[in-house]
């Protein structure tokens, strides 16, 4: 049985300056619940690709479909709404707003998306309870932690708070842009285990960008971005 892809990219090209594409991609797809590892050297267009999939950047050439929505045909506001409702994002560092505490950071997406808020409430719980549950699942089960300022947390804890924020409201797609680059080797593996495990639990697809190829084994598939105009995909052995 085949299902509609969560993400489908075809003949995509993007240039910050005319005539100098930073990203050129013939085809890429992600099935619902699939976990994709994207690697590539600096300047290969990894972050640009994530910007296009999340709808923050407008599609210049080619097609990007997310959950059946053609991003190239959507207005900016529609793409923003799609991202708010269906996509969770984790950055490399500085994921959190320093002036909000842990709880407010985790529940922030539901302040911008009624859809995600409704999903939490429809599950018979409330935002705070769901946030605590997610934090607990990610190893942050200290009962005092939600009220703490995020500046009091370690980098590893901050990344897990960011993961909880991305997962709140069960978005179908998680975008992670080198979220482990500031962690040590053990913390890196632990974080990816937790993130992938939680995505699996809620059947969320994930696009995980990293330089660290040792993490590729945690994912269903690896995709390597090389120079613009060349890409290759291969299944893990």
């Amino acid at each position, binding site marked *: 049985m085949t299902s509609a892809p969560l993400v489908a990219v075809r003949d995509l090209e993007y240039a*910050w300056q005319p005539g100098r594409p930073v990203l050129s991609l013939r085809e890429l797809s992600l099935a619902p619940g699939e976990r994709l590892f994207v690697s590539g050297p600096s300047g290969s267009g990894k*972050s640009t690709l*994530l*910007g296009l999939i*999340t709808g*923050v*950047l407008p599609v210049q050439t080619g097609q990007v479909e997310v959950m059946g929505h053609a991003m190239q045909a959507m207005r*900016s*506001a529609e793409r*923003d*709404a799609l*991202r*708010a*409702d269906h996509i969770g*994002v984790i*950055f490399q560092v*500085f*994921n*959190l*707003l*320093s*002036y*909000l505490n842990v709880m*407010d950071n985790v529940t*922030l*997406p539901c*302040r*911008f*998306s009624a859809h995600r808020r409704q999903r939490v409430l429809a599950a018979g719980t409330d935002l705070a309870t769901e946030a605590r549950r997610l934090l607990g699942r990610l190893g942050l089960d200290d009962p005092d932690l939600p009220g703490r300022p995020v500046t009091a947390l370690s980098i590893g804890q901050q990344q897990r708070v960011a993961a909880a*924020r991305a997962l709140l409201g069960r978005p179908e797609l998680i975008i992670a*842009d080198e979220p482990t680059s500031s962690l040590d080797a053990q913390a890196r593996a632990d974080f990816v285990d937790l993130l992938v495990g939680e995505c699996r639990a809620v059947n969320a697809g994930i696009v995980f960008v990293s330089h660290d190829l040792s993490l590729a084994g945690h994912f269903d598939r690896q995709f390597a971005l090389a120079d613009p105009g060349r890409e290759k995909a291969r299944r893990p052995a």
Partner: protein
Amino acid sequence: MTTIGTIIRLAGRSLWNRRGTAMLTVFSIAVSVTLLLGVERIRTETRSSFANTISGTDLIVGARSGDLNLLLYSVFRIGNATNNISWTTYRELAQRREVAWTIPVSLGDSHRGFRVMGTTADYFRHYRFAGDRNLQFAAGGPFDDLFDAVIGADVARQLGYVQGQSVVIAHGLGATSFVNHDDKPFVVKGILKKTGTPVDRTVHVSLEAIEAIHADWQSGARPRGAEISAEDVRRLELRPRAITAFFVGLKSRAATFRLQRAINEYPEEPLSAIIPGVALQSLWDLVGIVEVALLAVSAFVVLAGLLGLLTTILTNLNERRREMAVLRSVGARPWHIFTLLMSEAGLLAVCGVAAGFGLLYLCLAIAAPFIEHRFGIFIALNPPGSYDLAIGAIVVSVALLLGAIPAFRAYRNALADGLTIRL
């Protein structure tokens, strides 16, 4: 909570996180708003205070001098007379057929910093202020005895005087005097109700009493061995030789200019007759230029405060691009980012204006008694009027207008940066 509510809450939390610089910005706006409102408040209160001090008087007559000087010393107890008017001249003018009443006043002495004014009982009958209000007694009544005094409400309150209190008048106008008429003490016969005019700060005695306390004085001093006791002075003929000025009420207003001209051309003595309203208007014309200059300076100070706000927001903008990217990642749209920055500018301005109002009332509460004591101008602590609120609204509006500059830059950054920062 709505998305806008969330944005405003985020703006508040963000400002609180940067409360050091935010409070400095609020303080600079507050000080500038206080200055602007304070200048206007003192301007309007001064005008109101002056305008309410005298009414119903058609002419004020004094020795030849400038109109303003005569108005200021005779009505507002500010400054001094250049000369006196002889009693004969006063009586002659007072008996003219177009004159309905007169109030002679004699100034020059004081009591613990408050002016002493010699007058007649007509003062309590004819003097009008704040429209058509006449003087009323809170206790006692006009003077009967030679050494009776009637004190204003502030004199009674500040010195804690009650009826029957003994009062010693000092020679001259200093707050502290070494030359007192202590051989002829007065007794407080009446206490006037509060008027909000210099009357409140005046000790009133009869003209005869002024003559009595100076009966044994020669050339501004009391010669040793020539003292006349309080009992002995009662036996003297105490007809005033001169007065400082007199107020005139006419039977018909139509006679005002005719009598004014006649007095100004009075052949026996150089005199000036002024119409209080006209003299007051020339005072406003004189100070109007200064008022405009002060308002302009205050407005520029407010603008400087608002430019400080703009600088604060603009300076932090680059450092906050990651924050904007995080907000975009959780679903904030570019106009949400714009609204966030506008909310910050608005919150800073609203807090600055509110603090400015608070500071204004604090300053007025502290300065009002001093201004009242020093200048006789009553600054009422009234709630903010429509002008004050309009000023507040204008300051917030200008702040929002200026805030649109960093807000628009943040909006454009949000569009260009996406989820990564492109410097």
